């Protein structure tokens, strides 16, 4: 039975929940602000449109929270799907704040310089 959903509809909420198998947490535990980049578009032909949309959006870097806002998908779903695609090597995820103190200090120094230069 083909779902009665117009093909041009935006990635919605119901199908992604099906896609994630009901999972709402990703093993990768991705922070909201983590920036995602597409490394190689090697999605299988016929891959779900939600996956395709993420891979296409992240041809330019976008954070987890931006992906959710722009594609109108739930944050939890985005995390799960990005986690899967990262595991497949299709996406990569950039660094967030380090818990290692001297790394944190170096990044904060760069940030402070940046803020002062705004």
């Amino acid at each position, binding site marked *: 039975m083909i779902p009665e959903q117009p093909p041009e509809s935006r990635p919605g909420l119901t199908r992604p929940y099906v896609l994630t198998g009901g999972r*709402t947490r990703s093993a990768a535990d991705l922070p909201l602000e983590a*920036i995602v980049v597409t490394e190689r578009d090697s999605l299988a032909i016929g891959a779900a449109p939600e996956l395709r949309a993420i891979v296409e959006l992240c041809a330019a870097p976008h954070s987890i929270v931006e992906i959710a806002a722009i594609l109108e998908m739930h*944050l*939890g779903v985005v995390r799960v799907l990005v986690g899967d695609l990262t595991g497949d090597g299709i996406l990569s*995820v950039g*660094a*967030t704040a380090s818990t290692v103190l001297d790394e944190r200090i170096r990044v904060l120094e760069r940030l402070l310089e940046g803020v002062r230069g705004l």
Partner: protein
Amino acid sequence: MASDRAPAPIALKVVVAGGFGVGKTTTVGSISEIEPLTTDAAMTDVGVGVDVATLTPDKVDTTAALDFGRITFPDGIVLYLFGTPGQERFAFMWDELARGAVGAIVVADTRRLADSFPAIDFFEDLGVPFVVAVNCFDGRVLHDTADVREAVAVDPDVPVELFDARDRATVKHVLAILVERSLGLARADLVAAASGPT
């Protein structure tokens, strides 16, 4: 594809907290390079670090609109600014937002200072660096910072600043004060770690 691409930037975040209608979204919008975006965060989406099951089992319909803006710096750092939902029933989101944050700007209105207490308590308890930024609507200053400091009872080294949420320059100033504060605390932690018992 694109093996010559630069690595993804380092992403940092700042939380903008405070009572309802105090100017959080305005603060974010004043300094963001993009028109602030909004996403609905369902409770189960943001439950990392929280026992989701004890909150609302099998329920995902409690959502809060999460506003955020972005600043891209030239040297590979991107800063996200998150406006927290002000209502206390959305406090479940704060753990997630605070985790790894550079720090928090607690926006306060002198006419309703008590509205900022939950945010101040939260960031104090978690040890998240924060500044109290008093939003001077229409240029009115009803108190000076010493009065505000006494009223909110923060540590003497917590910055208390007057600003105008609509004025980019003053928002930038508050942001710089916050990053300085965060950096100062991180350096102090490093010194303490180096000199402490091993």
